[in-house]
């Protein structure tokens, strides 16, 4: 019964994979796309429950050490499933109301989630590569979901070309590390004695591949275009679930395959963290399109997360995981509100000037937007504050004072572009065009309220989650 027990270690992957195939078949045989939607929501919820449950289970490796389960990998699955469940719940109403409902979206989202789950559980560079590619290829399709919309298809093309380009670097890095160490298992790579040119070139190329996937400056060029062009709830999915999966895999690779050369890569990441924070925030300041502003803000957030990677201690990794959780909640929420404003016809509701005075018309949506944006700024008592605080604290413990100073200044500058949205929503009533907003659906509002409540809850009461994450320290390090 050994193999049956091994299957249990990848239970979320199996659930999501089955659901993807099922939804594809259901979609082929039924007219009604609601069936596909409800199956997707149901299976995502089960997947989330199973991965939350596995947080408290054993840790170890299975499938001949190809898969790691429990600990950091289990929390990675929780992050991915949270992002997926909430963005799926928002997707149907958004696509229906904007008149572009295409039922294939659910199976593609589930296949992308499948790839992410494999990615966060990988203990071998082959599984890692396959996870990243399953995720990316599904995301290329999702970005160009509406195939007669020029912006969406252009986003898909840019994502696809730069994604294929970065895959080349990642695979070359994997190949060279394999050549230097004679194995693709993360632990065997850590045991490499002879660190010659091939080894260092492999490490460098692998880092470049990862920097592309998590959109660190200067490998961020695709992010704003793709996030702006893709359908908004799909952007929420890409910005949260796939980003979180990439970062968790980055933790696994750095802590398991390259722990003994930590001094070298942490200096490199130090430099990239500064570039990412500064350039991400500066470019976000000048955006007039809300989706594009949120895209640059997600680059800036990647910069704050990289501070944790530069510190590279067990405490820093647990802080990163908490940050990613907060980031997932508030970003799905913020993109969800933008998606809601887009339901309204007549004006382009991704442009900030059209937001004038909208905050009073649908008070609930205005309040929720404020919650998510304040959380992104990092104002207590929201989860975003705790995340930032813990990452910065872990970096100060490692003596990275200058890096933290840049981080704090950058996040102070970020107040401008987040609050600007609220200024338009609440304080520019007279300038706005006269539009009457449609009422949001019940399920849509409830989803967003849940996200806001979770953001607030983990801001006020982070203790239980942070203790749990700190207990992973040994597994990941």
């Amino acid at each position: 019964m050994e193999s049956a027990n091994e299957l249990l270690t990848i239970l979320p992957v199996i659930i999501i994979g089955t659901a993807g195939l099922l939804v594809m078949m259901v979609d082929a045989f039924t007219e009604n796309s609601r069936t596909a939607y409800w199956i997707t929501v149901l299976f995502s919820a089960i997947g989330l429950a199973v991965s939350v449950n596995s947080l408290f289970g054993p840790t170890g490796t299975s499938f001949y050490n190809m898969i790691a389960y429990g600990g950091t990998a289990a929390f990675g699955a929780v992050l991915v499933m949270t992002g997926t469940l909430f963005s799926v719940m928002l997707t149907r109403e958004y696509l229906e109301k904007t008149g572009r409902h295409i039922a294939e979206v659910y199976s593609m989202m589930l296949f992308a989630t499948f790839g992410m789950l494999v990615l966060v559980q990988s203990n071998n560079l082959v599984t890692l590569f396959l996870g990243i590619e399953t995720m990316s290829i599904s995301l290329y399709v999702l970005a160009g979901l509406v195939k007669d919309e020029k912006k969406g298809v252009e986003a898909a093309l840019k994502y696809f070309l730069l994604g294929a380009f970065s895959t080349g670097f990642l695979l070359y890095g994997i190949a060279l590390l394999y050549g230097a160490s004679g194995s693709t298992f993360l632990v065997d790579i850590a045991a490499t004695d002879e660190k010659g040119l091939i080894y260092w070139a492999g490490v460098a190329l692998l880092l470049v591949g990862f920097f592309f996937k998590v959109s660190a400056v200067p490998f961020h060029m695709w992010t704003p275009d793709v996030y702006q062009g893709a359908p908004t709830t799909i952007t929420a999915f890409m910005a949260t679930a796939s980003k979180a999966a990439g970062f968790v895999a980055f933790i696994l690779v750095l802590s398991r395959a390259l722990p003994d050369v930590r001094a070298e890569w942490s200096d490199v990441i130090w430099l990239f963290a500064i570039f990412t924070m500064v350039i991400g925030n500066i470019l976000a300041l000048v955006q007039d399109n809300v989706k594009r502003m949120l895209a640059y803000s997600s680059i800036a957030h990647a910069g704050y997360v990289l501070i944790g990677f530069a510190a590279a201690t067990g405490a820093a990794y647990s802080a990163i995981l908490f940050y990613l959780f907060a980031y997932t909640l508030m970003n799905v929420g913020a993109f969800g509100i933008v998606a809601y404003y887009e339901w309204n016809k007549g004006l382009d509701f991704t442009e900030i000037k059209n937001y004038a005075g909208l905050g009073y018309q649908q008070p609930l949506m205005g309040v929720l937007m404020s919650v998510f944006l304040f959380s992104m700024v990092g104002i207590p008592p929201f989860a975003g504050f705790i995340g930032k605080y813990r990452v910065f604290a872990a970096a100060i413990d490692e003596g990275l004072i200058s890096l933290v100073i840049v981080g704090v200044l950058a996040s102070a500058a970020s107040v401008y572009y987040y609050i600007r949205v609220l200024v338009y929503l609440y304080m520019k009533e007279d300038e706005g065009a006269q539009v009457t907003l449609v009422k949001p659906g019940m399920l849509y509002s409830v989803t967003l309220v849940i996200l806001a409540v979770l953001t607030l809850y983990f801001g006020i009461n982070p203790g239980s989650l942070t203790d749990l994450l700190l207990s992973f320290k040994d597994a990941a390090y």
Partner: protein
Amino acid sequence: MELYWFLGLSAVLFTIGVIGVLTRKNAIVIFMSAELMLNSVNLSLVSFSAQLGDVHGQILVFFALCVAAAEAAVGLAIIIAIYRNNLTVDVSKIHLLRW
């Protein structure tokens, strides 16, 4: 050592691929250059595998080929969609999204 000839060829092909992606304007040619990058890596993997007497590298090559095929299927579909919308596949003329 013979291995270094293969690695050298692979590095040269990879560099040609990178230069192709960065300089060409036609989306299909850019995609071909990206495929060249992947295939040059496959050459590295196979030669390492032969050198080490270990089969894992060759298995990874099969996976890489499958991924490249899946990517080609999706990529060419996206390029067709781009052509239908813009009547061109020249990436320098497709710029609704910038800054």
